[in-house]
């Protein structure tokens, strides 16, 4: 795997030591530095969200809820939801790994609009400021879904401050999505045709389409809720003929594509990791490209499956349920293609691959339970219960966060120029996998037994499974704490990695690590297929030759 260990050295001139002062970091235009700024801020928000999660799980160990009052518990799950969704999951892979890697992977020197990229980070922090202020001043107890009329008239939390925070945060997503789309369209290196783009770039492109087309609807919905709360009368007010279901339609029109914003980049990372660690081209590259675009488009048509029991007409429910089965097809294509990529590969079990394999395992369980929720009769029973909580945690924590950690480990040598400790990383991945399953699998059973979600007090018979679920938390915490430590340590003292520790063909591995500020001394000309791991020495099969890739 690694070449003969000749001496590697950290290049004297790289983006990290380009400017040491704080001003050079806070006013940088370099997409790599902005990625690191995002890395630090979303780690900070991840800690806040995790603290809320730990407090909630401790609270749920006993059925009578002795630790907190109901209001505090409601504020905790709202805080956990809002911070984790908008301030960690949505920016995690696109804004950290995407910002760092997209220009390099397509052979560009920087994003199309470098200043807009920096503005996106400032807008993200400004929105975060509002959210934190709303939490410190007293918190919001409406749930991350802000359903009216509770959020607009009956809640007495700081809903307007939080709505403004998320509204501003929405602009950060729009600016990032806009930047990615223009960069991929306009700044590809010569020879980098659309079908030579790495799959991670394809998923970032699809995610940016969702960013740009879904986030505005959230912005207007939260503005209308804030206006209704401020003026006492508004669009969703049932007293003047308003319809609370209209809020749910507009909210979920954003929020279902938002869950695809969270999972699509994760799928891109996994396509990269599986191809890299089985050292062979990905199985069915075209299918995965069309699957990514398919998810981005179909994701906009299925939001009604969140509203099967909410008073929506049963005919609309049936149509949304059918469309939800269609949206599962691209995800299934991806999982089957990853599995097929392992076939006849040279698989080596570094930490990133362990993260990728646990992603596939947990995402498959999450996806399959998603299909159960799409079928109408079952959803009527399990919606608003812990079955739903388990389903989306399997996709978000088991999927998106696992892929995020896998991506951080895989590109860590490129970001910092140094290697992470391999065995410690493998243990962290295993601990995380075990801790996660222990924490969230019991919730499937709790859900089908009927325990409602967002409950501070619950009947005694659910207590045992809740305790088991809380027991998974220390392992989960350890699984997240370990990478924080050894990645921090090895960023300064780790073994020097050299330009291409994984011997991968991607453009990002052809430049020194950490890369210079302008990425490429001269813009490269791309001639090879995206995952061309050299002609496979064992097989004498004529792999897809150059002409075929030109023809495509």
């Amino acid at each position, binding site marked *: 795997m690694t070449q003969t260990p000749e001496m590697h050295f950290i290049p004297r001139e790289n983006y990290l030591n380009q400017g040491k002062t704080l001003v050079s970091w806070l006013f940088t235009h370099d997409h790599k530095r902005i990625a690191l700024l995002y890395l630090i801020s979303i780690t900070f928000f991840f800690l806040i969200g995790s603290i809320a999660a730990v407090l909630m799980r401790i609270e749920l160990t006993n059925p009578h809820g002795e630790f907190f009052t109901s209001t505090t518990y409601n504020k905790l799950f709202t805080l956990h939801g809002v911070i984790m969704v908008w301030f960690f999951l949505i920016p995690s892979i696109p804004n950290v790994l995407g910002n760092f890697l997209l220009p390099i992977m397509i052979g560009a020197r920087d994003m199309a609009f470098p200043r807009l990229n920096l503005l996106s980070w400032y807008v993200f922090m400004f929105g975060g400021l509002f959210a934190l202020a709303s939490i410190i001043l007293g918190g919001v107890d409406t749930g991350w879904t802000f359903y009216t009329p509770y959020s607009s008239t009956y809640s007495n939390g700081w809903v307007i401050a939080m709505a403004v925070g998320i509204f501003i945060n929405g602009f950060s997503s729009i600016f990032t999505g806009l930047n990615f789309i223009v960069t991929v369209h306009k700044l590809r290196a010569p020879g980098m045709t659309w079908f030579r783009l790495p799959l991670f770039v394809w998923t970032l492109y699809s995610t940016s389409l969702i960013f740009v087309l879904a986030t505005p609807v959230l912005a207007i919905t939260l503005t209308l809720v804030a206006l209704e709360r401020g003026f006492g009368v508004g669009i969703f007010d049932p007293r003047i003929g308003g319809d609370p279901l209209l809020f749910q339609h507009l909210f979920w029109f954003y929020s279902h594509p938002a869950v695809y914003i969270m999972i699509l980049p994760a799928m891109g990372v996994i396509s990269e990791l599986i191809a890299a660690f089985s050292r062979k081209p990905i199985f069915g590259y075209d299918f995965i490209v069309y699957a990514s675009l398919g998810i981005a488009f179909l994701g906009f048509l299925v939001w009604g499956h969140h509203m099967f029991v909410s008073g929506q007409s049963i005919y609309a429910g049936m149509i949304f349920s059918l469309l939800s089965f269609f949206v599962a097809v691209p995800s299934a*294509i991806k999982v089957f293609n990853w599995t097929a990529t392992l076939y*006849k590969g040279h698989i080596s*079990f570094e930490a990133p691959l362990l993260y990728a394999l646990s992603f596939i395992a947990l995402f498959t369980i999450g996806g399959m339970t998603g299909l*159960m929720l799409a079928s109408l*009769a079952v959803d009527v029973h399990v919606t608003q219960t812990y079955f739903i909580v388990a389903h989306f945690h399997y996709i978000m924590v088991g999927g998106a966060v696992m892929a995020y950690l896998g991506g951080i480990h895989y590109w860590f040598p490129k970001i910092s120029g140094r290697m992470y400790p391999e065995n410690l990383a493998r243990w962290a991945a295993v601990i995380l996998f075990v801790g996660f399953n222990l924490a969230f699998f019991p919730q499937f059973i709790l859900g089908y037994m009927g325990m409602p979600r967002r409950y501070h007090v619950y009947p005694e018979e659910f207590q*045992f*499974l809740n305790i088991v679920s809380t027991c998974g938390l220390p392992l989960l915490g350890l699984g997240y704490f370990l990478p924080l430590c050894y990645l921090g340590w090895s960023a300064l003292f780790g073994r020097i990695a050299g330009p291409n520790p994984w011997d991968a063909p991607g453009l990002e591995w052809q430049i020194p690590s950490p890369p210079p500020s302008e990425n490429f001394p001269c813009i490269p000309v791309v001639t090879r297929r995206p995952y061309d791991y050299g002609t496979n020495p064992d097989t004498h099969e004529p792999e897809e030759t150059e002409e075929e890739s030109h023809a495509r």
Partner: protein
Amino acid sequence: MNLPLLPYESSSYAASVDAIFLSLLLLCGAITLAVFVVIIFFCIRYRRGSSADRTHYPSHGEQVGIEFTWIIIPFVIFIGLFIWAGNVYYEMFSPPTDGLAIYVIGKQWMWKIEHPGGQREINQLHIPVNRNIVLTLTSQDVIHDFDVPAFRIKHDVLPGRYVRMWFKATQTGTYHLFCGQYCGDFHSRMAGSIIVMSDLDYAAWLQGSGTQSAPESLVAEGSRYFHSLGCSGCHEGSLVVHAPSLNGLYQQPVPLQSGQIVVANDDYLRDSILQPSKNVPAGYQPIMPSFQGLLSEEQIIALIAYIKSQRNDLPPNSRDQP
């Protein structure tokens, strides 16, 4: 400490919901297991440095073929399950016409339940076994959700609108009632219980439900309001005012002045009481005063129960008693 994996199956459609869930579980479990086994097998067989044969890799054409097979087959099976689940959903969400009508009002952090016989309950619902129960629900403030896991049914309860749901309990016993939609501070304390009784116990309960004498029935209470609020002055054949007779009105098509034909369901009756000039029947003037804000939800429900009891087959004199 019992660890039941499945809650009680005690409503007519609970069994079919469980059947759908189990078949989905089997199908999804099979696919998930297949993916796990294949991955583990590939990982072991094709690990780096192993001497496994890596020639004869499927060509591009074969890859497309494989791709289509492992997509089309599961998709067709899942569409079959979709149709089955859709049918059960349709059955669960279309209440029968002959059920026992019970009114439920969701209020921030309690369920107020009213039986046709006039009995009122908070967070408790006594129902006879093996009889269709049709609930008409509304909310006074925010969105709640009448959630009974043992019956596998739940339905959101929206303010300003009637929502109907039904179930038929098949086993006697006490089952949990939860509020399924987050509704504020004591959302988790809004739970209660459904007590399913045999017909004998139910009849006994109806009589002796409280120490006081048999409570005034909902229809009687409705007729009391109908007369005390002055509705009878116009709607019971007065000579001075030209008002539509409410005789046998329920579930009949009503031609409106705007040319539409509207079915007089619960929502129509409620709208006509609160905003009378909204759906003015053809041939009448919008002169009825609005009762918006003057009536509590309970009074509206009682009035609607009285109007629904005005069927043509009732002997005329029984309608006139004060």
